[in-house]
Every structure is written in C-alpha cells, then in structure tokens.
C-alpha cells in the first residue's frame, strides 16, 4: 500500500523517496529541453511542440500504467491522493496561469530546473511566484466563495462521460496521437526557436 494511504507521507522514508523521485523528475524535464524558457514558450508561437509532446506522452504512459496495474489488482487509485474538482477556480486559475506562463517563460517545476542550470530569469520568476502565492493567501478570505464555486468533490472523466476507465484511457491515447499528428503538420517548415 502506498505511503499516502498509510498516512506516512511525512515520514523520513517518504521525504527521502520524494527527493529521489524529484531527481528523476528534474532530470527528465532538463533532458527534454525544459530548462530553457525560449524552448518552453515556442509552442505558443507554433514553432516547437515539445511541451505538448512530452506532457501528453507522460500522461499517456502514467495513465496506461495506472490502468494496467489497477486491472491486475496491484494498485488501487482510490487509495491515492486525488484533487477535488472545483470548476470555477480551476478554469479561471488555468487561464491566469497560462498568461503568466507565456509572460514569465516558466512554470514552477521548469523554473526550478532553469535556476539549477543558471537562468537568472528563472530566479526572478520564482521570486514572483512566491509573491503571487502570498498574494493569494492574503486575498483568500475574500475569495472563499469563488474558491468553492463549482465544487464537485473528487470527479473523474470516466464518471463525467459515463464510460469505463479503460475506454477513457484509450480515448486519451487517441487524443494524444491526434495532437501529435496535428502539431507535426503545424510545425512543418517552421524553424525551431533558438536554433
């Protein structure tokens, strides 16, 4: 059983394992080129779709793995930490996040990688992100109604669509393949940013 389900996420072994998993996480982000803000933002100018390719491939690999291990009875996803769906703050938060992403050139995880690779803009971005977090906390009492608008509890796509987990996982795979093919067409003939 996983450490979260056992209430052991604060244990020394969980902290050590988190650090080791983090090392692999940072390694793959950097290998993909995500220690570069120009590489990350070039998708928004239709020049390089690595962000989409890496992210969707990762989602496909992890969701297939979870579906497979679940079918074999080796894991139970309902024992894992799953964020609740709250529609309004997640949609508005996503829109604001997207604006900040293309302005700032980073997201939080990639900025940590960029900082470790010597990018001064990543350091400034992270400082801004800390100010933004504190700003949200300062306004949180006033935002509490907004933050609970559209609250659905833990809500999965299979529940929304009325389909099995396997079918939805297959749809995600097909969506990813379609997105890869579509983006390859869009990017053809355009030089990659920064090359």
């Amino acid at each position: 059983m996983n450490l979260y389900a056992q209430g052991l996420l604060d244990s020394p072994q969980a902290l050590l394992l988190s650090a080791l998993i983090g090392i692999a996480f940072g390694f793959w982000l950097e290998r993909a080129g995500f220690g570069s803000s120009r590489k990350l933002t070039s998708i928004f100018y239709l020049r390089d779709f690595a962000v989409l390719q890496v992210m969707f491939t990762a989602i496909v690999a992890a969701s297939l793995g979870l579906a497979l291990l679940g079918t074999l009875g080796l894991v139970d996803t309902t024992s894992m930490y799953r964020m609740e769906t709250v529609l309004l703050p997640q949609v508005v938060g996503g829109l604001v996040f997207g604006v900040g992403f293309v302005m700032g050139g980073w997201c939080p995880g990639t900025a940590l990688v960029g900082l470790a690779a010597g990018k001064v803009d990543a350091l400034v971005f992270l400082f801004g992100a800390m100010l933004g977090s504190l700003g949200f906390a300062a306004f949180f009492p006033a935002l509490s109604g907004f933050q609970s608008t559209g609250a659905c509890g833990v809500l999965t796509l299979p529940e929304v669509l009325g389909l099995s987990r396997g079918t939805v996982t297959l749809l995600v795979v097909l969506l990813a393949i379609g997105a890869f093919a579509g983006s390859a067409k869009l990017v053809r003939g355009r030089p990659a940013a920064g090359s």
Partner: protein
Amino acid sequence: MSDSHFASAAPGRPSPFWNPYLAGVGLGLTLLLAYVVLGTGLGASGAITRVAASGAHAVAPAAVEGNAYLGGYFADGAPLRHYLVFMALGVMFGGGLSAFAARRTKLAVERGPRASIGMRLGLALVGGALVGFASRMGGGCTSGQALSGGAMLLAGSWGFMLSIFVGAFGAAWFVRKEWQA
C-alpha cells in the same frame, strides 16, 4: 542556443536535447512511480508556496500563522518538512546535474533577440506572480494539477490544463517581442 540536432556535439558544446517522446515516457514512468510508492503525483508549486510562507513568517509570524490559507502549514511548526519541499530540492538537483552533464549550465537571462534584459526580467517577475497566484487558485500547477491530475483522469485537472493552453495562446501575441525575432 542548445537545441541544435547534431548527434554528437563537439567537446565544449551543449549536447542536443533528447527526443520529446523518450523524455515523455521517462517523465510518465516517474509519475507512475510516485503514484505507486508515495500515493501522490508530482508537484512543484506547493514547495514554492511553503518557502514563501516561511520567509513571510520570519518577518511577520503572527500574521502568517493567523492567515486562513497559510496558517495550517505552521500547525506542527515545520512548514518545510513536507514531501513537496524535498521533491523540489530533488528537481533542482536532478535538473542541475542533467544540465551540467550536457554542458548546458550557463549564467544567462534567456530572451528573444529583440528583448532587453530589463523587459525580460520584468515580465518574468509579473508572469511568476500570476503563476504563483493561479497555482493556489487552481490547487496546483502544470505538475501537480495538469500532469498528475491529468494522468489520474480527474475532470478539474483536465479543465485546468486546457485553460492553461487557452490563456497562454491568447496572451502570446502580446508578449511576442519578448521571445520572437
């Protein structure tokens, strides 16, 4: 820049980035491992918020402990003793090691050819503030919400992810001078 596609870089030159599908599989298996072992996905913004809260706590302890959002971090007195903080330290270590091995470590302000350093750093600060604010509003970032929740097939995580792309594509034209030739 470093994403040239020479299979074997000359000594001293940065190595090419890896194939995005290969990196994606590696990232996906890392996420799967996190779910199976830890029981949670990957995350990054939570650590940033905790470091910020600790910094603010050093200046104004009563205000931070009394804050409805941040107060809980200080219930056990150790807001940084959290798995996401250790994961973020790992991300920096792993990313830094990878960049160094590929000869990509370089002190730089990365920007488009038409952008001044002042413009780039100013937009990095404002963009960072928006991302920090929005991560708390949406309950995570591209790692914790979009990637981890996306793989768990959570409805709100997919809504958050699609909204990120809409927001970023919508704003890209306005900051094109920061990135584009």
